[in-house]
């Protein structure tokens, strides 16, 4: 067979979303790849310029639909910087609670998709089943499974309901037991190791050059985690380790993500204990109502804003489950953000696709792209 280009996508079981991987193959070997994005470009940055600060939150949940909380947190941090607000401490802990549970949920979703890519059928359902438990917890205090609209500029919408912490502990216990099973199903299998070892290698210096962050970078041996390096919210008050692996291949990324889930469980146990001991307000006190309460007033918004907030910019970054996400919010004193710019970690991770795909087999594309953990929503925005 001579060389040919094939389109993997936009409707293809490998993509887990809407994008197109154009692959140039010779037989079963990959000669070149060209990711084609934009099939889910919804203009979130443009719509944000047309909305009030709190209303952008509804877009953030849908921007990255497997890690909605992380993106809410990211945007809220930047908007608070741009407006000069600070949330109460309990809200910070609640945000960490959201973030870490979201990390577990996102990694479980990744696990489900990844094992399906290498042909494991039942762990896909185990992953989805256990993810639903986390989503049950989200639902119990935010009222939704995936699109939460929970964080507000200056805090969070409401406190967790009574009895939440006990249920959270139950779920954490259940999850820690399941992680063992996951490892048995994947690492305990010779076929899995044969499939994933030395596959899709991307060394640390290539990662840095191509802007790759998150578990992919840590799998290459670079110990970089914003939660440690530039602690935000309540992370500086919590104990955890950064998961790192050496071999920079698919197995290493698997190991890093599994370890991150274990570390998240560790963080969450501390957070849940803290929440039990420290009741308090969850929304900053002296908030003008149109920011504190989540609705837009009519008339004289410009006046109100100029009175309370001068111009400002906000730049912040969070360690999202996929990597390092950044948001840049420009407040020109108007009622809407002047410009919102997001940096999606998966965007950079996919842009380096040529580095870790060329030279492998066609059959290796699903495991490698699965280990990248693509969420198209945040790439295209």
């Amino acid at each position, binding site marked *: 067979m001579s060389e040919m280009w094939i389109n993997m996508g936009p409707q293809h079981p490998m993509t887990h979303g809407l994008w197109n991987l154009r692959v140039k193959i010779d037989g079963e070997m990959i000669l070149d790849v060209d990711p084609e*994005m*934009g099939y889910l*470009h919804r*203009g979130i*940055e*443009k*719509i944000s310029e*047309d909305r009030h600060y709190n209303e952008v939150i509804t877009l953030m949940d849908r921007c990255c639909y497997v890690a909605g909380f992380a993106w809410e947190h990211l945007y809220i941090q930047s908007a608070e*910087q741009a407006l000069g607000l600070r949330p109460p401490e309990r809200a910070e802990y609640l945000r960490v609670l959201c973030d870490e549970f979201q990390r577990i949920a996102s990694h479980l979703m990744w696990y489900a998709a990844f094992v399906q890519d290498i042909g494991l059928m039942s762990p896909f359902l185990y992953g989805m089943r256990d993810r639903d438990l986390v989503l049950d917890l989200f639902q119990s205090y935010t009222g939704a499974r995936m699109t939460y609209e929970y964080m507000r500029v200056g805090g969070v919408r409401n406190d967790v309901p009574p009895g939440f912490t006990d249920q959270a502990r139950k779920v954490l216990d259940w999850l820690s037991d399941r992680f063992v099973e996951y490892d048995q199903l994947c690492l305990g299998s010779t076929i899995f190791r044969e499939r994933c070892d030395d596959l899709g290698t991307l060394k640390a210096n290539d990662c*840095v*050059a*191509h*802007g*790759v*962050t998150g578990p992919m970078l840590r799998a290459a041996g*670079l110990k*970089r985690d914003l939660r440690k*390096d*530039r602690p935000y919210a309540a992370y500086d008050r919590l104990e955890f380790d950064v998961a790192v692996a050496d071999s920079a291949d698919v197995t290493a990324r698997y190991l890093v993500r599994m370890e991150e889930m274990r570390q998240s469980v560790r963080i969450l146990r501390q957070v849940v204990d803290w929440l039990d001991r420290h009741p308090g307000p969850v929304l900053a006190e002296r908030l003008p109502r149109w920011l504190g309460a989540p609705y837009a007033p009519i008339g004289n918004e410009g006046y109100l804003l100029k009175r309370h907030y001068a111009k400002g*910019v*906000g*730049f*912040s*970054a969070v360690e999202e489950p996929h990597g*390092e996400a*950044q948001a*840049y919010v*420009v407040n020109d004193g108007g009622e809407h953000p*002047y*410009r919102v*710019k997001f*940096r999606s970690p998966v*965007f*950079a991770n996919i*842009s*380096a696709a040529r580095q870790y795909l060329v030279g492998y087999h066609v059959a290796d594309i699903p495991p490698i792209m699965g280990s990248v953990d693509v969420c198209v929503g945040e790439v*295209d925005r």
Partner: protein
Amino acid sequence: MQPDDIARQLAPKLGDGLLSVEPFPGTAGRVRFRSERALELFRAVRDDLHFGHLSMVGAIDWVDHREVFYVAWSDAATQYLFLSTDVPASAAHVESASSVWPSANWHEREAWEMVDVTFDNHPDLRHLLMPDGYAFHPLLRSFKLHEPEELEVKSRHV
């Protein structure tokens, strides 16, 4: 790393290419530079200040001019650095950073198609998010969204 340190290290290399270094929230500082000296600045930032990782490239349309900004990260200092330069709206172009940081490639493609800033010597400047041949630049301020009323369900009470 403080803004003053950055200015002290960059000034000898860039001379008048460096406009100012000022504090910026969440980062070590904001370096404002002349767009003509972009490539020198990128090299200096990467090699002398050891900001080896370029996180983000974006652009803002300030109607009269456009601002191109870069966010770099240093593992040694565990800090971000914000670089920004102004280009006139009539001739919005700046040297591509992808020869210094390969990760700039896609970010610059996006900035080009969204805010209409051309990146000189970019290896592959074509549409990323919008289809080929899309003639508009949506994140310009002059580009307006649909009015919601246009999209109403026509026969609402049928």
